[in-house]
């Protein structure tokens, strides 16, 4: 066991910390600040701030230098993500592009795609959406029906995507399309890149149970997409999608732990403000949640160890997903519990505003659904980790 980071990574931490201290307005660090800003304004603030951070050299931490990255290690990436949380930096508005599309393009993109896609993404000049899920294809991605028909050197795409993050604000979307007429399941699919302002693209926001609209529906009607806008080869979409989804945020657990620890402390402060932090039953419940957060931290350190040694995480990433999503969601169940009779109120007392925590609590209901629901993850663990016989 060696839980330290190499000196080079610690130097990087110090440098980043200094930059963050000078570049995050004090107002942003007040808990609940983002809940007080309108959605459009918040998006613009986040996009512009993240661009400044990239221009200062704090982006693409573990990407090769040739792609505009910093050429750093997975540990430096973990430190970057964690320091951002610690400093109350806004969350990325381009994470789907940064996490999934960019490494896929680096791996299988054409030289031209690499040049056109990666740099502008890193500088937030192009915000990327992901178009995988459809009304009839959620956990079962291979059931997707959006299709493209070749006409000259363009595909004419028709269909509907759903649960698209930043659908109304993104510039482009990487999307799974059935490009081989009559194909089914995993065959005949392609990963196409589509401009969100192309003719025939219509976006409808989805209002979530939290009241905000980070997700949207994307309707594609006779959208013309040049065949050159395919990543990973026409008809090879399933393999490309599997590659893309394999870019699990291996180092993300450390920053998630940092974030959920902040939420834990916030929740403890609420309990104290309401005089409930001495209740022995609630103390047991809070402690139980904290135990799960600490376990998430251990798992994150374990995963980082594996990633740094170049090991393939494989189905073990389902273990991480189950742990973080359930620990996070569970923490907010205890939040509800400790509010007691005040659970229905956003401001139970004059000086206690729970708006931000309440929004987060609704958000936690989604984390066990997206990115592979807990049920899908359990099936993966049962069959591929434990080796149990497949269900019929």
């Amino acid at each position: 066991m060696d839980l330290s980071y190499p000196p080079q990574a610690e130097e990087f931490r110090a440098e980043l910390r200094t930059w963050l201290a000078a570049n995050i307005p004090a107002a942003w660090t007040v808990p609940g600040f983002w809940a007080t800003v309108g959605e459009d304004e918040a998006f613009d603030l986040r996009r512009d701030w993240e661009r400044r951070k990239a221009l200062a050299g704090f982006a693409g931490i573990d990407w090769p230098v040739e792609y505009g990255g910093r050429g750093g290690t997975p540990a430096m990436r973990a430190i970057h993500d964690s320091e951002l949380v610690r400093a109350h930096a806004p969350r990325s508005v381009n994470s789907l592009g940064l996490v999934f599309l960019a490494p896929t393009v680096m791996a299988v993109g054409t030289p031209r795609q690499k040049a056109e896609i990666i740099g502008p993404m890193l500088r937030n000049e192009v915000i990327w959406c992901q178009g995988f899920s459809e009304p009839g294809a959620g956990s079962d991605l291979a059931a997707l029906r959006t299709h493209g028909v070749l006409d000259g050197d363009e595909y004419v795409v028709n269909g509907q995507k759903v649960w698209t993050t930043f659908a109304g604000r993104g510039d482009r979307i990487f999307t799974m399309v059935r490009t081989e007429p009559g194909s089914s399941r995993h065959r005949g699919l392609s990963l196409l890149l589509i401009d969100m302002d192309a003719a025939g693209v219509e976006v409808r926001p989805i209002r979530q149970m939290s009241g905000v609209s980070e997700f949207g529906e994307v309707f594609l009607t006779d959208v013309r997409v040049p065949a050159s806008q395919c990543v990973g080869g026409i008809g090879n979409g399933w393999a490309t999608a599997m590659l893309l989804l394999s870019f699990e945020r291996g180092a993300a657990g450390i920053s998630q732990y940092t974030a959920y620890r902040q939420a834990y402390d916030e929740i403890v402060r609420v309990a104290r403000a309401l005089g409930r932090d001495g209740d022995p039953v609630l103390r047991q419940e809070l402690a139980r949640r904290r135990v799960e957060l600490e376990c998430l931290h251990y798992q994150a350190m374990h995963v980082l160890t594996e990633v740094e040694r170049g090991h393939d995480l494989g189905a073990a990433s389902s273990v991480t997903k189950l742990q973080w999503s359930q620990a996070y969601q569970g923490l907010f169940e205890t939040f509800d519990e400790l509010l007691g009779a005040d659970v229905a109120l956003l401001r139970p007392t004059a000086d206690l505003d729970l708006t931000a925590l309440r929004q987060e609590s609704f958000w936690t209901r989604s984390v066990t659904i997206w990115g592979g629901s807990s049920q899908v993850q359990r099936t993966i663990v049962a069959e591929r980790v434990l080796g149990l016989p497949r269900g019929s």
Partner: protein
Amino acid sequence: MYFALTDEQRALAETVRALLADRFDLRAVRAVVDDERGDGHPADLWRAVGEQGWLSVCVPQEHGGLGLGLLDAQVIAREFGAGVVPGPWAATVLAGAAVRRDGSPEQAAAVLGPLGVGELVATVALRGPGGSFGPGGIAVRADAAGRLDGAASGVEYAHVADVIVVAATEPTPPGVDAGGGDAGGGVGLYLLERGGAGVRIERQAGIDGTTRLAALTLSGAPAARLPGSDAAALADLLGRGAVLAAADLVGVARAALTRTVAYDTERVQFGRPVGSFQALAHHLADLHVAVTMAEHAVLYAAHALDENRPDADLAVAVAKSKTNQAAGDATAAMVQYHGGIGYTWEHDTHFFYKRAKRLIAAFGDSRQHLEQVARLTVDTVS
């Protein structure tokens, strides 16, 4: 960042596993469990454990030991748990840790050398009848001359121990103001030798046939104080005990899960292996997550104690409460998912289930450790 066992530690685990498979499998465990009158301390196994040096893991090199840490000891504890191995290994290692930390050079020399090679069986007696693990649960008093009076209960293998480390409350030393708080002074650890005057040891009937317990009744029994011991020494000993118990538990839990998966892959009902039913498969997947987290937590806690990390107290409480939950659930699932056969004496499930029951309460139950987590994480938020 390296959060994993080293190659050497993995090799050690492999060696322990291989020796147990070869020389002390579940049939041997069953023979010990079924021999209810026996002392539960198989001599041939003890000899092998001593020859392998597994008793000397934490014994310093100047006393002939390996001088390794709790992280290495937990590797062995985990394998012993997985094999539901009988005998006073954990008790002996723990008593050795107390002597190493708090004993005089003479005490260390007298105890640690023989203990490391298996010539001495040792154990710890830390709580009185009905008492919990902690200073409040002690029911032995020491007088100024080091004579002990009182009782201890549930002491692992006291009936075969050559030395017993006994926790006792102490009178306030002359000239020290007892103050308002701890009435009656502090806590000390005492070395009690086998067969001394005023010592009565009686075996106690218990649920876990793989580990035998005994009660201690002390009436003016002369004992040697470990000069370095105090309340912090007791806390340290309890922390180490909790980590070793957690390691054993996590071994029990992993073995319970692995054996259940194997059984449910073979067992056919309704024309399918029962493990292909989602009701079982998903629960087993959840158990895999829980056991994996518990394994991590034990590693972290052992490392934190070895390295005196500032969050060591939290790490111990996290590890014990998480392993308690994971092992409790995994062993209950083991019984359930073996169906009717899992409820029989004939099947091995009950060894795992009962060993988990005992260990879940050992060195602090979940309630106690969770309250500790709350003290360290709720009360400290500013």
